[in-house]
């Protein structure tokens, strides 16, 4: 994997490059050394056990928690986000595991949250609700399965519809990277299929996607490359076409060590800090 990151850290074909990212919470080293590269227009899957540091990595990438050390390059430019607003405006959209939508707001309000369209000037700026509703409808119906009414509260939507709204929000902006944190973790079989279809259609539109998932089958179905994390490190990278479920399981558990990474005894056997 080191060869890959070094080969093209400045190439514009790599939307996002992360090198040696580190993050500690007090004495707990949640991220020891995380490096990965997202090729443009591809789906990169990030897998690892609970507590391997996947969510922390994502949080560092998007600015929810600034990393302690390491480098993040977006389209070749070094970036450092200290809050999620910066990450968003630079073009990194995230669909988080649980905190995706605000239940008591409408679909349209959720889609435009933090980016509301206003009219008027100076201190007298009012929401252009009609325009937001219309655009929200367009955004959702591009992706959606059974299109929810954009005025209905998210609370009334099914799990699949919610995820569709969250994905539409992430994809609807001119974003460089869409990060999906366990997009189907809470869904049933049918809804999972639909959301996977959504992710495929995002890829077909040329989106660069980082998919965090526990589901190896899903990773094999959806991704172009797989990056494996273990105990706060990115320990392996595979092209999806060259790997299989067994190998991924072995890499995640540490039963199989990547040839590049054997300086340390199996860190997966160490007690794991709980991820926040």
């Amino acid at each position, binding site marked *: 994997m080191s060869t890959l990151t070094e080969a093209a850290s400045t190439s514009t074909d790599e939307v996002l490059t992360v090198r040696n990212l580190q993050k500690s919470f007090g004495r707990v080293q949640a991220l020891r050394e995380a490096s990965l590269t997202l090729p443009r227009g591809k789906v990169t899957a990030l897998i690892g056990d609970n507590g391997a540091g996947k969510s922390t990595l994502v949080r560092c990438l*998007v600015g*929810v928690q600034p990393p302690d050390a390491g480098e993040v390059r977006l389209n070749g430019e070094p970036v450092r986000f200290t*809050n*999620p*607003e*910066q*990450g*968003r*405006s630079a073009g990194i959209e*995230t669909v*988080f595991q649980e*905190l*995706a*939508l*605000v*239940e*008591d*707001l409408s679909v349209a*309000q959720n889609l435009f*949250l*933090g980016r*509301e369209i*206003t009219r008027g000037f100076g201190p007298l*700026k*009012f*929401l252009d*609700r009609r325009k937001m509703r219309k655009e929200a409808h367009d955004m959702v119906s591009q992706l959606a399965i*059974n*299109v*929810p*009414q954009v005025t*209905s509260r998210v*609370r*009334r*939507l*099914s799990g699949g*519809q919610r995820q569709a709204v969250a994905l539409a929000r992430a994809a609807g902006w001119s974003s460089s990277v869409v990060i999906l944190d366990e997009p189907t973790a809470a869904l049933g079989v049918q809804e999972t299929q639909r959301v996977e279809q959504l992710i495929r259609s995002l890829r077909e539109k040329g989106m660069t996607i980082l998919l965090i998932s526990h589901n190896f089958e899903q990773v094999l179905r959806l991704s172009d490359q797989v990056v494996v994390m273990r105990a706060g490190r990115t320990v392996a990278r595979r092209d999806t076409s060259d790997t299989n479920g067994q190998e991924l399981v072995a890499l995640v558990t540490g039963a199989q060590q990547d040839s590049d990474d054997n300086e340390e005894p199996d860190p997966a056997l160490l007690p794991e800090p709980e991820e926040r």
Partner: protein
Amino acid sequence: MATTQAAPAATPSADDSRRKLSELPWPELASTLGLIALAVIFAIANPGYLSEGNVSAILQAAAILIVLTIGQTFVVATGGIDLSVASTMTLGAIVLGEFYALGWNIWLAALAGLVAATLVGVVNGLVISKGGITDFIVTLGTLSAASGLALIIADGKKTTVIEPSLIKLSVNGIWLFSWAVIIALGLAVIAHVVLFHTRFGVHVLAIGGSAESSRSLGIRVWMVKTGVYVISAALAGVAALLVVARVGAAEPAANTAFLLNSVAAVVLGGVSLFGGRATIAAPVMGAILLTALVNGLTRVGLSEFYQPLTVGVVVVLAAFLTRFNR
């Protein structure tokens, strides 16, 4: 709900209308329906209850509570609570009285009271949002601090404020509505626009719904949180003017009833105490309902000792209604 557009157009049936009925926002309607029920009951018990004079008196008595309730609604909509509203109002009134006693123009004195009150809100907001201390504790602290400050400034004594233009506020007006009531309702209209037609308003509700998601979307949670406490305190500053106009003096009184009733009106208005769901009209109706209730009880000759008990029962009943209708 979501797919109704595509559903075959069913003939309106009993089932359909029942579904429509269950989709009505009952928590938000409760205070209005309650007010109507109350008006009917008291009008039967006491024919003078709905007379022009009495309705006008009820509204006049409700004006201060309406103003405080609007502020409380913003705070509760973010999932917080402002226990200091009434003491902040008292502090504002005292500052107004002191400057008036110094010979200031009454409106300038009122502005000074407004500024003093707003400062309490700035402290509340910053300590809660930046200091990360629970709203309940912070505003409990400023509740005590603001009323203490009022006592110190006033030296425990009241300042009489006899000012014709101030008296007009309560006496003159249009039809049933005194100027004080018109101010209160005007503020309610502005508040409604702010809550539903500005980015700030959406962010207030978003933070109340989920502060974490809002933060992850780049909303500056601390600014919005500070904002709602400042709004609440500034409105307490306006209420200070109304209370001085009503009493004819600035008194360092505790005014605890205003605090309890402002929270009660918010609950009656179907605002979720966990935040994220709020309207302005319903809590305002709640404030009028509480005032109309007390007025009615007095008119039918029930001892005033029964009033707090009745108010308490009504509020808890309203909270039940909210709970069963999410």
